[in-house]
């Protein structure tokens, strides 16, 4: 079975597992309808796999924010592969392209890397970090809802004591997901809130504690130190915690997301990414570069502002999405 067929099969399968896939499909519906079509377009226009073909491929990937150096590496590899397999006709290349991209993503690992690594026993702590306005608090609300639906006992800690209205915001999400929120007043020490959160979670025998933190730009040394301190408090209180450190990235972010991933990892040892706002027109291609360079996998994608708009990441569908506008550049060039 070719790659595209596998991909289609997977989507069919998803359709049967209803709800989950419905959301995904809604979020990515354009994608699904157009991917093979667009790739076919490109291929039809370029019978031959030549420089022009690769140039356009390069454009498509850069436009998806994959990042220049990753794109260059990828195209280089593709060119080699084309030579190696003696591919001349463009119709033979589409499987190679998609496979290569998904390959970058998984490397030697299987798809289990996209799951949260939480134990059944003992309190599990998830620390959520990221720059300002990416969707940390919202994603926490969504995640709490999902975990709760899975039968987990969840508690949230309002570690953003800085931004106006941040505590209120998390409290509303707590109500929506029907989980308790541990909070202090605005302006208090975030580490102290998290400490209290841990104590409350322990005494109430909760399964999962999710810690919200204030948004911070990664070049602010003091704020990054503060975050590292929050993590140390968690480590001290529960050996082996935090079990997950989720970095939230906004899909509309360009190359800076790579710097974000690097710096937040240095400060808090990020274990996974939540890629939000994929319901817009941005593609979030930078996560490929992040995976490539820092090996951090994406665990969830945000597909809207509602409580159900959080889905497990699916690399195939994601790669699919990168190409959803393929062929558009041709149309626009014609009208130019």
């Amino acid at each position, binding site marked *: 079975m070719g790659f595209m067929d596998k991909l289609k099969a997977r989507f069919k399968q998803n359709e049967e597992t209803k709800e989950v896939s419905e959301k995904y499909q809604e979020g990515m519906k354009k994608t699904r309808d157009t991917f093979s079509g667009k790739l076919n377009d490109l291929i039809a226009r370029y019978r031959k796999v030549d420089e022009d073909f690769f140039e356009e491929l390069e454009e498509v990937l850069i436009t998806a924010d994959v990042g220049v150096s990753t794109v260059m590496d990828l195209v280089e590899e593709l060119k080699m592969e084309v030579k190696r397999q003696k591919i001349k006709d463009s119709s033979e290349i589409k499987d190679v392209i998609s496979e290569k991209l998904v390959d970058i993503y998984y490397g030697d690992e299987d798809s289990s890397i996209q799951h949260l690594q939480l134990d059944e026993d003992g309190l599990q702590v998830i620390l959520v970090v990221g*720059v300002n306005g990416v969707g940390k608090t919202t994603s926490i609300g969504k995640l709490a809802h999902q975990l709760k639906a899975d039968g987990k006992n969840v508690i949230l800690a309002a570690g953003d004591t800085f931004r*106006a*209205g941040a505590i209120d915001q998390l409290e509303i999400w707590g109500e929506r997901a029907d989980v308790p929120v541990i909070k202090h007043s605005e302006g208090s020490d975030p580490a102290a809130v998290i400490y209290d959160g841990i104590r409350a979670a322990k005494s109430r025998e909760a399964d999962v504690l999710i810690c919200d933190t204030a948004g911070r730009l990664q070049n602010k040394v003091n704020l990054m130190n503060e975050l590292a301190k929050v993590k140390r408090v968690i480590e001290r209180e529960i050996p082996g915690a935090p079990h997950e450190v989720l970095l939230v990235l906004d899909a509309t972010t360009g190359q800076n997301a790579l710097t974000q991933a690097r710096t937040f990892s240095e400060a808090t040892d990020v274990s996974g990414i939540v890629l939000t706002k994929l319901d817009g027109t941005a593609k979030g291609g930078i996560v490929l570069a992040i995976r490539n360079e820092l090996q951090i996998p994406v665990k969830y994608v945000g597909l809207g502002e509602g409580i159900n708009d959080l889905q497990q990441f699916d690399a195939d569908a994601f790669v699919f999405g990168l190409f959803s506008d393929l062929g558009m550049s041709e149309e626009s060039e014609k009208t130019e």
Partner: protein
Amino acid sequence: MAFEGLADRLQGTIKKITGKGKVSEQDVKEMTREVRLALLEADVNFKVVKQLIARIKERAVGQEVMESLTPGQQVIKVVKDELTNLMGGEQSKIAVADRSPTVIMMVGLQGAGKTTTTGKLANHLRKKHNRNPLLVACDVYRPAAIQQLETLGTQLDMPVFSLGTEANPVDIANQAIAQAKENHNDYVIIDTAGRLHVDENLMEELQKIKTDVKPDEIFLVVDSMTGQDAVNVAESFNEQLDITGVVLTKLDGDTRGGAALSIKAVTDKPIKFAGMGEKLDQLEAFHPERMASRILGMGDVLSLIEKAQTNVDEKQAKELEEKMRTMSFTFDDFLEQMGQVREMGPLDDLMAMIPGSNKMKGLKNAQLDESQLTEVEAIIQSMTKKERQEPSIINGSRRKRIAKGSGTSVAAVNRLIKQFSEMKKMMKQMTNMQKGKKGKGGGFKFPFM
């Protein structure tokens, strides 16, 4: 890897050219290739880069570069000129309506910084223009959006108009205008919910508000970290609402900010303000030329210099520069500088503006924490005159004495001495950076500016 500035990128080609009498087409091609990569890495949109490169090539292949003695710098100049031209002049004026109140509407994607910027603009209008704004909470969707704006209103001691989350944003806007008239608020700033440009219902809601309240300004608020998608967002908001200006937020980060170019290219609307932090006084006029330098990876040195200049007088600056160059900077100077630096704003903000500062290991560890400044002052004040001039004599027993005298610890003293030597190193780096332009003018200048 990645994110070298244009100057770094061009090093290789420049080396090749230096000494050659002529620059070949091939050289120019190589250089424009590097320019292209630099712009793409800075998140300038692909199509915008294409257009720019075409123009740059035209100019670069022409006489200008060929006959210039320093073709590398010439290319950078051409590129920077083109970028600056594209971004237009400085325009941070806010409209004033013939009949009060003047209405400003804030629009943009989720999390871009609309609510925060609403507060910042209000603060700016009061401080700089002596105005009396009313803030309007039209975001009825995001949890606690109204509380957020109300908190900002309290912080600023300014009125906030809201009708809760059940009301219709169009009604809220209309009623707010009526109230502003009654209470003699001369400005009304409407905070709206974040929305996707492709969300037809919510975009229609904005159009309705626009039709009703006829805003004098519609500011599109855009996150400066935005990647290639910036063109779609800006184009779409502009088409549907005919925005009057742009506010670029989170420029206190270390993003290159190529989105600025993309937005200007597709909307041709002025970028009026830059968000420089989360606090309500961290809004600045947008400087196109500095943005051009930043996109090209030359740091926001000009901003830093301006900040320094508003706080340090010319003569002092010259002296400082001299000291930096001769490495005769002492703890006494450090103490004096600290006083001035403290007036310039948060330290990490300043550090972030120095090109490459985030890559300097020493700086990262230096942790020039605001709260540590007092401690630092105490330590220096406990040093003898000789020690301040000649830190190398501060041995173990002297360190103990200083620690005792300042009520700190030996570790703190050690740390400061280390920081001080790192700072000296950094100054050396900074002065090295200006070697390229030696002899010209003097002052606090950096290459290519």
